[in-house]
């Protein structure tokens, strides 16, 4: 895909906005590419992690927020650990995901991932921790095309006691509720 960057993007304060929200200063990045070199999911990404940082640096908001990369990031933090300039790259992906959702720019190709995140959060909200069965149920209902996926691991997990039919609630559910309210 060819991208044209104009004065509008270059003059925008996208990098500043990201810094204000997260404290991450992308100006520090000198594009050495060590994040990309060590990323275990880079092969699936449409843009490399260092390119996402570059988009933020030059104000290419749309490219960054509509990218698939920000959703594919597994938050393994390898990039952050190895960054010579101490840029928190994995954390930056988090912020970009938030902004992407807020602005309705989330890449439609990665709907599965956003739905999965939602299902995960809903389960935590309800029980204070995830209930695997409930979460998977919600996810598969919302994304019916995935209904048959990974079905065979179910019985295996059940036999090993990794899945339980009834959700477990934690003691401090109210505290979790408060956290969710605060984050709204």
């Amino acid at each position, binding site marked *: 895909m060819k991208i044209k960057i104009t004065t509008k993007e270059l003059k925008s304060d996208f990098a500043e906005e990201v810094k204000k929200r997260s404290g991450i200063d992308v100006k520090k990045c000198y594009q050495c*590419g*060590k994040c990309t070199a*060590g990323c275990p999911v880079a092969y699936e990404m449409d843009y490399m992690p260092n390119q996402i940082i570059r988009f933020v640096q030059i104000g290419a908001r749309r490219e960054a927020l509509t990218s698939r990369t920000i959703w594919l990031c597994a938050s393994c933090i390898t990039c952050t650990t*190895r*960054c010579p300039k101490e840029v928190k790259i994995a954390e930056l992906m988090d912020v970009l995901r938030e902004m992407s959702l807020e602005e309705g720019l989330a890449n439609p190709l990665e709907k599965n991932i956003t739905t999965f995140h939602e299902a995960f959060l809903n389960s935590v909200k309800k029980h204070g921790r995830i209930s695997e069965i409930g979460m998977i149920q919600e996810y598969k209902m919302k994304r019916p095309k995935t209904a048959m996926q990974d079905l065979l691991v179910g019985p295996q997990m059940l036999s090993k006691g990794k899945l339980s039919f009834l959700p477990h609630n934690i003691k401090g559910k109210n505290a979790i509720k408060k956290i969710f309210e605060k984050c709204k």
Partner: protein
Amino acid sequence: MSKKIGVFVCHCGTNISATVDVEKVAEEAKKNNPGVSYTTTYKYMCSDPGQKLLRDKIKEEGLDGVVVAACSPKMHEHTFRNAAIKTGLNPYHVEISNLREQCSWVHPDKPTGTEKSIDLVRMMTEKTRKDKSLNPIKVPVTKRALVIGGGIAGIQAALDIADGGQEVIMVEREASIGGHMAQLSETFPTLDCSQCIMTPKMVEAAQHENITMHTWSEIESVDGYIGNFDVKIRKKARSVDLDLCTGCSSCWQVCPCKKIKSEFDMGMGNRTAIYIPFPQAIPSKPVIDRENCILFKDARKKNIKPNDSKVCRKCIDACPIAPVKAIDYNQVDEIVEEKVGAIIVATGYKELDDTSLYGEYGGGKYKDVITGLQFERLASASGPTEGAIKRPSDGKEPEIVVFIQCVGSRDPAKGCSYCSKTCCMYTAKHTMLFKHKVHHGHAFVFYIDIRCAGKGYEEFSQRAIEEEGATYLRGRVSRIYKKGEKLVVLGADTLTGSVVEIEADMVVLASAMKAQDDATKIAQAVYIQYDKDKFLSEIHPKLKPVESSSAGIFLAGTCQGPKDIPETVAQAGAAASKVLALLSADELEREPVVAKVDRSPPPVFSTCIGCFYCQKVCPYSAIESEDIKARDGSVIKTVARVNEGLCQGCGLCAATCRSKSVELAGFNDEQIYAEINALEFN
């Protein structure tokens, strides 16, 4: 008798006059100030006509005090004082009022600037009234120089000074001079053999009649001041008598400890316990490594004198020198004292060797991940493989070699933010050396930026890519891991936005140039400053690049910061020329702005109470104690005394003194109070 003072206000083009009404300043200087008999303004006081104006008016008006309201005294105080000398006026009656750096440049509007300027000029006029004539201090000069370090910087500096006709004492802590340059295989950008151009210089230095060499020696202490340093040199016990030994090699050929890692070969080869670091070593006489020699180990264990140990005496038995053998196991350290007038510090660098820093590159675990200097030893004809490129693990010739740049450089997360400056060039050189020796091989270089600024440097790095077939990939390597006999290098090419995975046979890390481990120790021994990376600091980054913060001590080479050979040689020459200029005079003239401790007539002798608080605060160790003695030799009083040669006139002692017994010439209490009063009561 009141002074006749002239005030000269400079416009400095528009630098001052844009924010200061200079005419008004001149006018106000005269008002209510009977001492000021002449005022004027001029476009550029520092220009030739400006100085002429100053000289003419001193004569015509008979001025005996001058205030030049212009830029910082750091810039032109010297100029205007010299102009005064030509008219016969003592230069210390000329004062500078700083209207530029401390006024016009920092204030935005004219009214504020003008008001402050009027105050500044009035203050300086009052101080000038109290100025006394001062005469420069003369200190004798010892016409010898000390060069610390025997690498290319030290050798070049020593040769230049010695050729200039002055004596040089050279101190090198290793067993041979030569430093890192002697370790290199070939040098960029010409690819000439490093040892071939280095060894003639080493020989020349060794044979020069003006150079005295102390190898296997370290600086114990440095005292004194510019022109008059007292240096103590520790000649470490070599266990070999340099006068008797002929360097015949009998001893190291029979030494049974053959598996000691050679420091010179960066651990790529072995040496014996009695050894010379490399074949062309100067002096070509061995030293016994007491840590690893089995005789010394035995003596330490049994707590006996080394000569009494009978474990192994092969070297002394093999020594053909008779009747007294050249090997002396009982030799002890010796302290040599020397007097010198100037010092050049050329202690060099060390290659980053903290492998634990880069866990992701194996952290020293993988034998086939080597450093730049180790590669130099591999490629060197005098190296452990005699120049054949063989990987350390199994001695096989590597086909695919990955070079990683910026290892330890430009990496703030690992505590090193600077660029080591030489790695781009030496990596390009390494790819060529590799290709010249392994024709079917392939060199890959991971880089962030290629920085090849220098004559012929850009062309050299392009040649590596265009003609010598090195593949450059723009990205930093994230990880190296072992897969069978191969090393998998996980990198990136940011130009295409892709991850790059190379199965390599050997990896060479372009390791950073770091300050020597004991750089701070040497800096403290000679009282000079160092920066956050422990490189020794020059006093001015542009205009005084070889001068250290202590007068008479100069810097050369990589102890001051990463640099390549041409730059090092140029800097060494520059430092040598400074030393020669210093040693060319029989006496040195010093600014008389120094502190003085009170001496009074009997029965007081001195108001100093001998608390020596001044000694504690003095940053230049210039305060000494002096016994005031009666005629019969009995001590009446012990008081402080300032060594005028060391004093830099900072005034800390004067400010600290509890009995007001210390006076700083040119800035005494009377003068300072006059300045303050002028501000307060007008």
